[in-house]
């Protein structure tokens, strides 16, 4: 449980931090510091349990069907890393409190920082490989957000993108690698994987697995050839660089290599890949670091080089090398974090990080300078500091690996030592000499607590350097035991091992480094060189950018080649496929003899002659005579409705009829905004030849689609229904279990009510979308003035307002008539609603009838009159309907039944007698309300477009003033 809290608390803290006000710098820092301190104390408390060599575990089922469990596991190595993350995290939080400017939005910063802390702890504590990859990717995401924290800066955005692209791609490789590894080992549990090293190494998939996992680790730890993202990540605020890009996140890669060391190491492939990449990185990083002008750039390349050193150690594959690798990880984190913070202080106080400008800072910042010099000495490997110890272990290992003959590795190690001394000297050079006068700010010592983290870390460097066995001996031993187990070697963490070869190498490196640096300054003009000698041609960043560019341009050209933004070709393709694909997939249907066609009704046939004529007429007229086309479509709709009635579907007939009405009104409201279109024949124009070709093609598609549909329908109709369908279930149970004899309605509000709930939700969403879209509606300029038909001076109605037309104009008779009908229509709606469960009717039909009653009033008397007499808040209707429907569903939960289970109660009322009251009734009421609300909202929103004064598109001519309100 304590383990789980270690991961959960940072994420909870992150959520809380995000909610704080923008200026709460102190509260944010207290919160983040508190989280880190809590984690630190918890981890310390857990030391007692991990100290004995056993791992602390937490276990929870996650996806049992896939054999995946959520597992946390803390052994010595994880403990050490957790301490590193939380300890440095706490120091970084203190530092960031003073580093961040009051103008920066700190909630975002601390929120991301805590989320990163949680993800990083998740990586080191995961006991399951899949889970580890998930946290791994989370660290990539949070790192992306933190690098891009100052998102107004282009370099921050670019650095963030680059870091994320590289590390997340590596993460994907890692995921595949881990899946392979889990497959080979038979489980994703870390315990099993660690125990099955021999099986894994013998397996034919070992090499792909190793390569993929190495890709993940090497990208994360900025190893050659993926190292280029790290210097660009320095666009992040310095606390982030200190925390993520020196001490923790980049260590995730080497952590993974350590974690999987027992399983994957010990083969030539491992050594070639891991040690090879590490060796290149180590030399390139150290060499390039010397030629940087930016303080943080130097530190970034030096970090790359030190990570390379750790990688080489892990690649060598001997147990002692692993000890050295873990030890150096720890040492590097302490001195590098302190150096980053010192660089941040210099930047903060003097306003620049350019080493060409900085001079003599010792005079202005004596304390900080002393601390930074000590930390740099540790980085350079000066005796009595922690860097010296692990570097000497590294030298000893390189001697062992080459044996007496092969000195290549040792030479590379000495070379790296020389370079690192040189760049350390370059770094501390900013403190010496006369104080530079042209700095953007006059430097002062930073606030007491901003310096504290640096002091603390430098103290650690000293203590570990002087008394390694006493200070970190046991912690290191625990970590080593958890990686190596029984293979753990004997080693001695003493400062003095007597005169031996490693010591000689250290001395060589120190002397060589000082000489090299002096030579560079004297002979090479280090300050004024803009590029790295020899290596400037190998530019990873350029390779990355050109790859990305090529990727985007290829995608763009593929898009132009393969797709179109025009609708018609897409629709043609869709329709052709609609016709062709079924023909290709199934054998041709055997159309049975016409004799089985059953009885023939001339009336029905006559009905459909009209229906088909209407449809063809609509297709004919839709371009130039919209009103005619709309009326013809309505004719087809009426015929469809009558067909439903004829063929035993009264509910459908009613619904179709009402929907037909509202659809026609809807489209009539829209017609006003479409441009006038005059047939070319009336203008004596001829359609071009290409148009005829296109029309013939479309006609062919349409005819074949129609023929196919007819054939399919006929083929279905002449076959008897297969017995054993699910329809009988509904028919036999509707009355006995659903409590209603109208099976269609019972289906809608009871058996399939979840479906209906979804449907009314869609209806509500569409209504709100229509409303929202119309709020931004801009009509075309020529549709804004009232239509010519309404402006006709001969027509007396043209001079009247809608109210006058209704009270005394040509609408007087219909208005009296329809106002009288209004309550009757409402009664009909109520009647349909109430009887719906047993006889044709129900919420849908009743809602539509109700809406039609309202719309008729709108059409007659105009918007203004209706809205002064009737307060209809359709959005509330929708809300009420959805709440009623959902509440019915949730009510079933209260009685321990599944969602939307219905129940029928029998209530005896005075006068009325006994009535049965199913819960589906309330549900149907919800359906009713949503249908009413949605229909009215849509139609009224559309109708209002004619009333409101329009904002014209920019640059258009205003309409001529008519001074008349339009209905």
């Amino acid at each position, binding site marked *: 449980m304590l383990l789980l809290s270690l991961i959960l608390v940072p994420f909870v803290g992150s959520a809380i931090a995000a909610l704080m006000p923008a200026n709460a710098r102190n509260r944010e820092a207290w919160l983040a510091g508190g989280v880190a301190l809590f984690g630190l104390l918890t981890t310390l408390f857990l030391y007692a349990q991990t100290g004995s060599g056993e791992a602390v575990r937490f276990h929870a089922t996650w996806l049992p069907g896939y054999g995946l469990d959520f597992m946390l596991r803390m052994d010595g190595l994880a403990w050490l890393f957790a301490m590193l993350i939380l300890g440095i995290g706490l120091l970084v939080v203190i530092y960031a409190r003073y580093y961040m400017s009051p103008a920066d939005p700190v909630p975002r910063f601390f929120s991301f920082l805590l989320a990163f802390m949680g993800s990083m702890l998740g990586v080191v504590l995961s006991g399951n490989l899949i889970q580890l990859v998930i946290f791994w990717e989370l660290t990539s995401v949070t790192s992306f957000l933190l690098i891009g924290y100052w998102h107004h800066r282009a370099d921050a955005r670019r650095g963030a993108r680059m870091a994320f692209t590289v590390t997340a791609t590596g993460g994907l490789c890692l995921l595949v690698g881990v899946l392979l590894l889990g497959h080979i080992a038979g489980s994703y549990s870390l315990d099993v994987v660690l125990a099955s090293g021999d099986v894994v190494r013998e397996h034919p998939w070992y090499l792909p697995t190793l390569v993929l996992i190495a890709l993940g680790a090497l990208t994360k730890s900025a190893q050659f050839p993926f190292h280029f993202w790290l210097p660009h990540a320095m666009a992040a605020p310095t606390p982030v660089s200190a925390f993520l890009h020196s001490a923790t996140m980049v260590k995730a890669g080497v952590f993974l290599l350590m974690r999987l060391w027992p399983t994957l190491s010990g083969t030539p492939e491992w050594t070639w890949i891991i040690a090879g990449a590490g060796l290149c990185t180590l030399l390139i990083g150290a060499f390039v670091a010397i030629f940087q002008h930016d303080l943080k750039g130097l530190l970034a390349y030096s970090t790359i080089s030190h990570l390379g050193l750790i990688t080489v150690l892990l690649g060598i594959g001997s147990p002692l090398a692993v000890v050295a690798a873990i030890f150096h990880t720890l040492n590097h984190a302490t001195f590098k974090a302190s150096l980053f913070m010192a660089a941040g202080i210099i930047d903060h106080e003097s306003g620049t990080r350019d080493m060409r400008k900085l001079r003599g800072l010792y005079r202005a910042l004596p304390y900080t300078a002393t601390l930074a010099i000590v930390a740099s000495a540790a980085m350079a490997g000066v005796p009595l500091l922690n860097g010296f110890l692990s570097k000497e272990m590294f030298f000893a290992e390189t001697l062992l690996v080459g044996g007496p003959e092969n000195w290549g590795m040792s030479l590379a190690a000495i070379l790296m030592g020389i370079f690192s001394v040189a760049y350390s000297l370059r770094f501390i050079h900013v403190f010496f000499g006369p104080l530079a006068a042209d700095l953007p700010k006059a430097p002062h010592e930073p606030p007491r607590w901003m310096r504290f983290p640096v002091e603390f870390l430098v103290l650690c460097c000293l203590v570990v350097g002087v008394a390694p066995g006493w200070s970190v001996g046991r912690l290191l031993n625990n970590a080593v035991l958890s990686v190596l187990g029984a293979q753990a070697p004997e080693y001695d963490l003493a400062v003095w091992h007597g005169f031996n070869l490693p010591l000689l190498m250290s001395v060589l490196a120190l002397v060589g480094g000082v000489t090299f640096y002096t030579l560079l300054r004297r002979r090479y003009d280090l300050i004024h060189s803009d590029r790295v000698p020899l290596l400037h041609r190998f530019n990873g960043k350029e390779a990355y950018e050109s790859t990305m560019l090529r990727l985007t341009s290829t995608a763009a050209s593929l898009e132009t080649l393969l797709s179109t933004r025009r609708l018609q070709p897409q629709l*043609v393709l869709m329709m052709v496929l609609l016709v062709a694909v079924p023909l290709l997939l199934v054998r041709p249907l055997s159309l049975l003899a016409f004799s089985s066609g059953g009885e023939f*009704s001339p009336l029905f046939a006559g009905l459909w002659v009209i*229906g*088909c004529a209407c449809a*063809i007429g*609509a*297709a004919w007229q*839709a*371009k130039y005579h919209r009103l005619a086309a709309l009326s013809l*479509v309505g004719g*087809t*709709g009426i015929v*469809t409705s009558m067909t*439903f009635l004829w063929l*035993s*579907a*009264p509910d*459908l007939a009613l*619904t179709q009829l009402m*929907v037909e009405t509202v*659809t026609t009104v809807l489209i009539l409201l*829209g*017609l006003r*905004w*479409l*441009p006038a279109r005059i047939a070319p024949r009336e203008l004596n124009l001829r359609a*071009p030849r290409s148009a005829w070709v296109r029309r013939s093609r*479309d*006609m062919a*598609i*349409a005819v074949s*689609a*129609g023929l196919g*549909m*007819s054939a399919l*329908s*006929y083929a279905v*109709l002449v076959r008897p*229904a297969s017995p054993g*369908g699910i*329809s009988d279930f*509904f028919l036999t149970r*509707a009355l*006995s279990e659903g409590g209603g*004899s109208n*099976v*269609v309605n019972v*289906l*809608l509000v009871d058996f399939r009510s979840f479906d209906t709930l979804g*449907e009314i939700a869609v*209806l509500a969403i*569409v209504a709100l979308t*229509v409303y929202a*879209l119309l709020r931004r509606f*801009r009509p075309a300029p020529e549709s804004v003035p009232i239509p010519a038909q309404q402006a006709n001076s001969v027509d007396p109605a043209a001079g009247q307002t809608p109210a006058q037309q209704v009270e005394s104009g040509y609408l007087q008779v219909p208005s009296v008539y329809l106002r009288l009908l209004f309550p009757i229509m409402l009664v009909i709606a109520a009647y349909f609603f109430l009887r719906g469960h047993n006889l*044709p009717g129900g919420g*849908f039909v009743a809602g*539509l009838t109700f809406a039609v009653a309202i719309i008729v009033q709108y059409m007659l008397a105009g918007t203004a009159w209706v809205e002064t007499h009737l307060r209809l808040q359709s959005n509330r209707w929708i809300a009420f309907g959805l709440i009623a429907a959902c509440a019915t569903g949730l009510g079933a939960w209260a009685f321990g039944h599944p969602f939307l289970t219905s129940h029928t109660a029998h209530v005896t009322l005075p006068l009325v007698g006994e009535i049965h009251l199913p819960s589906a009734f309330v549900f149907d009421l919800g359906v009713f309300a949503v249908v009413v609300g949605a229909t009215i909202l*849509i139609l009224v929103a*559309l109708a209002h477009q004619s009333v409101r004064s329009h904002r014209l598109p920019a640059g258009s001519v205003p309409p001529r003033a008519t001074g008349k309100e339009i209905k």
Partner: protein
Amino acid sequence: MEAVIAISIGVLFGSGVWLVLRPRTFQVITGLLLISYAVNLFIFIMGRLWLDRPPLTLEDGLVDGLVDAGLYADPLPQALVLTAIVIGFATTALYLVVMIGSRGLTGTDHVDGKESSK
């Protein structure tokens, strides 16, 4: 009866497809309306054709209080089509609003938002 309705579905569908392939937004909306009639009818006839057998299991029509499923039209396609009709209305409304909005923004009623170059 079967032939009549099958031919009618084909005619409706064909007219709709023709209209959907036209370049003007109003033609497309008309086409969609016609296609939706055709498809609704097509789904509906999956329950086969029944005359005078509405799926109303009224108590006075029952034999010994039990329902004989063979005496009623198939209610399932009917329920599906009923919801389809209502949803069809909603999508028509959405299409209409996009149609007039696009006309206002682009100044044309061509489906691509600009007159074709041909």
